[in-house]
C-alpha cells in the first residue's frame, strides 16, 4: 500500500472516531454550561465557566413527571432491579446450559430449540397478558415485578450463552468425573464453574446492559415510584415547566448511561471477544 493511501486510511478512521465521539462531547460540554452560554455560545465549544449546577439538579431536584427529586430515587430503583435480575438469570442460565450439554436426555435438543424462540419474539406480544399476570400475583407497580419479568425473559439468552460455551467442554472430562462418583452439582461446581470465567463475563455484561437500558418493561410494568432510570430520564426530558433546561437534560442522560459505560469501559474487551466468538460461530 502506498504511503498516500495509508494516510488516507488513517484520515478516514480518525474521522469516524470523531463522529462516534462528537455526540458524547456535546453532551458533556452542554451539561457543564449555563443556559445563557447554551443560548449564545457554540454547540461544540467547551464551557467557559464550567458549572456543576445542572448535574446537581439532574441528580437531586429536577422534575420527572410529578416528582421533583431528580434521578436519584430512580437510579437506585434501577440498581435494585438490575443486580438481582442479572445474578439470578445468569446462574439459572449456567445450570441450564450445563444440563443441556452434558446431561442430555430424550428431548433435550428440542427443549433448547423451544427455549431459543424466546430470544426472537418481540416483547410486545407478551405485554398484555404479563400486565394482567403481575396484577394477579400482586407484583404490578413494583421493582419485584420488574425483576421477575427480566429474569423470565432473560433466561433464553443466558441459557444460549452457556450452552454454546459448555459445548466446547470435552464430554470425557464429565464422564471421568462421573466414574469417580461425582454427581450433578459436584461436577458443576468443581469442573464447570472454574472454567466459566469468560462466558460468565459475557453473560453478566450482556444482561446488565440489556436490563439497565430497558425501557419497554419499565414504562409498562413499573409504578410511579418503581420506575427505572431510563423511564425517569424520558419523563424528565419531557417534563418542561417554563424554560427548557438542556444542560440538565444532558447531565441526566449521562447519569443514566454511566453504569453501562463504566461496565463497558472496564470489561468491554472480554465482552466483545466472547460475544463475537459465539455469534460468529452461529
Amino acid at each position, binding site marked *: 500500500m502506498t504511503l498516500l493511501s495509508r494516510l488516507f486510511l488513517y484520515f478516514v478512521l480518525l474521522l469516524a472516531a470523531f463522529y462516534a465521539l462528537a455526540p458524547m462531547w456535546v453532551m458533556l460540554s452542554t451539561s457543564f454550561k449555563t443556559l445563557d452560554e447554551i443560548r449564545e455560545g457554540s454547540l461544540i465549544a467547551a464551557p467557559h465557566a464550567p458549572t456543576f449546577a445542572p448535574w446537581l439538579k439532574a441528580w437531586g431536584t429536577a422534575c420527572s413527571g410529578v416528582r421533583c427529586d431528580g434521578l436519584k430515587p430512580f437510579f437506585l430503583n434501577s440498581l435494585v432491579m438490575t443486580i438481582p435480575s442479572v445474578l439470578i438469570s445468569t446462574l439459572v442460565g449456567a445450570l441450564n446450559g450445563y444440563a443441556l450439554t452434558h446431561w442430555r436426555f430424550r428431548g433435550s435438543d428440542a427443549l433448547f430449540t423451544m427455549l431459543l424462540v424466546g430470544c426472537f419474539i418481540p416483547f410486545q*406480544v407478551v405485554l398484555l397478558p404479563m400486565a394482567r399476570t403481575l396484577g394477579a400475583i400482586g407484583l404490578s407497580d413494583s421493582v419485584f415485578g420488574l425483576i421477575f419479568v427480566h429474569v423470565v425473559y432473560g433466561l433464553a439468552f443466558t441459557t444460549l450463552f452457556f450452552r454454546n460455551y459448555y459445548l466446547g467442554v470435552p464430554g470425557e472430562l464429565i464422564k471421568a468425573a462421573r466414574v469417580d462418583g461425582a454427581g450433578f452439582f459436584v461436577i458443576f461446581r468443581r469442573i464447570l464453574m472454574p472454567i466459566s470465567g469468560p462466558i460468565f463475563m459475557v453473560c453478566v455484561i450482556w444482561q446488565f446492559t440489556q436490563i439497565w437500558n430497558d425501557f419497554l418493561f419499565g414504562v409498562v410494568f413499573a409504578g410511579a415510584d418503581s420506575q427505572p432510570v431510563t423511564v425517569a430520564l424520558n419523563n424528565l426530558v419531557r417534563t418542561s415547566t417554563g424554560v427548557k433546561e438542556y444542560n440538565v437534560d444532558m447531565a441526566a442522560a449521562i447519569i443514566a*448511561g454511566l453504569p453501562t*459505560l463504566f461496565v463497558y469501559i472496564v470489561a468491554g474487551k472480554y465482552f466483545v471477544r466472547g460475544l463475537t466468538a459465539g455469534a460468529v460461530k*452461529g
Partner: protein
Amino acid sequence: MISTPSADRWLPKLVLSPTLAASLIFVYGFILITIALSFTESRLLPNSEWAGLERYEQLFDNDRFWTSAQNLAIFGTLFIVFSMVVGLLLAVMLDQKIRGEGFLRAIYLYPMALSFIVTGTAWKWLLNPGLGLERIVQQWGWTSFTFDWLVNPDKAIYTVVIAGVWQSAGFAMALFLAGLRGVDSEIIKAAQVDGASLPTIYRRIIIPSLRPVFFSVTLILAHIAIKSFDLVMALTGGGPGTSSDVPAIFMYQFSFTRGQLGVGAASAVMMLMTIMAVMVPLMYAEARAGRDR
C-alpha cells in the same frame, strides 16, 4: 461403567423444569393469549366475547397503523443497510494492521453500551433546529443552512435512522472484524501470489466467506429495528403528530393509553408475524447453506 446415582437421573430435568415452565407459560402461553385477545371485543378490559376479524379490520382501516408500518420499512431498511455498510467498511479498514486499533475499536463501540433513551435524548439536542447542528453550521458561515428534520413530518423518521446507525454501526463493525480475523490467511497469500490486488481479494474471496457473519448481523439488526420503541420515544415521540410512529409505539398507545386492548393485541400479532417473516427465511437459507458447506 458409569453407575448413575438415582438423583442424577432426574436432577438435570428438575434443574431445567422452571425454565421450561416459564417458557411454556410466559412465552408460548402469552403469545396464544395475545392472539386470542386480538379476536375479541376487548377494549379497556379484556373481554372474551368473540369479535372475529373485526379488530384486524379496524387495524387495517387505521391510517396511523399504515404510517407506522411504512416508517418501520423505511427505518428498518436504511438502519440495517447503513449500519452494515459502515460497520463493514470500518472493519476492513481496521484490518489493515492499523496502529492503535484497540483504541479506535473501543471508540467505535462505546455507543452500544448506552440505552436508546440516552442516545435519543442526545441526538434530540444535537438535531435541535434552533440551537443544534443547524446553528453551528450557520455560525461557520453557511447562514442559509437549515436542518429541521426533527420537526419536519416528512423527515422525522430519518433522524431515527441517523441516531440508530450512530449507535449500532460499531457493533456491526465488531462482528465483521471478528469474522475477518477468522478468514484463512493461506487463501489470501495464495491469491496474492497469483497477482490479485487487495480490493479484488476482499471483493472476491474475503467478503463472500463472511456469509455467516452477514447472517448474524442482519438477524441482530433486524431484531433491533422491529423492536424499536425506546429510540423513537426519546427522539421524536412518534411526532411531529404521528409522522414518525412505528408499530411498537402504535401497540403501546392503543393498549395502554387509549384503552383499545383488542387493536393493541392485533398490532402485536402483526409485529410477531413480521419478525417471523424476516427470521424464518433467513434461518432456513442459513441452515441450507450450512449443510452445503
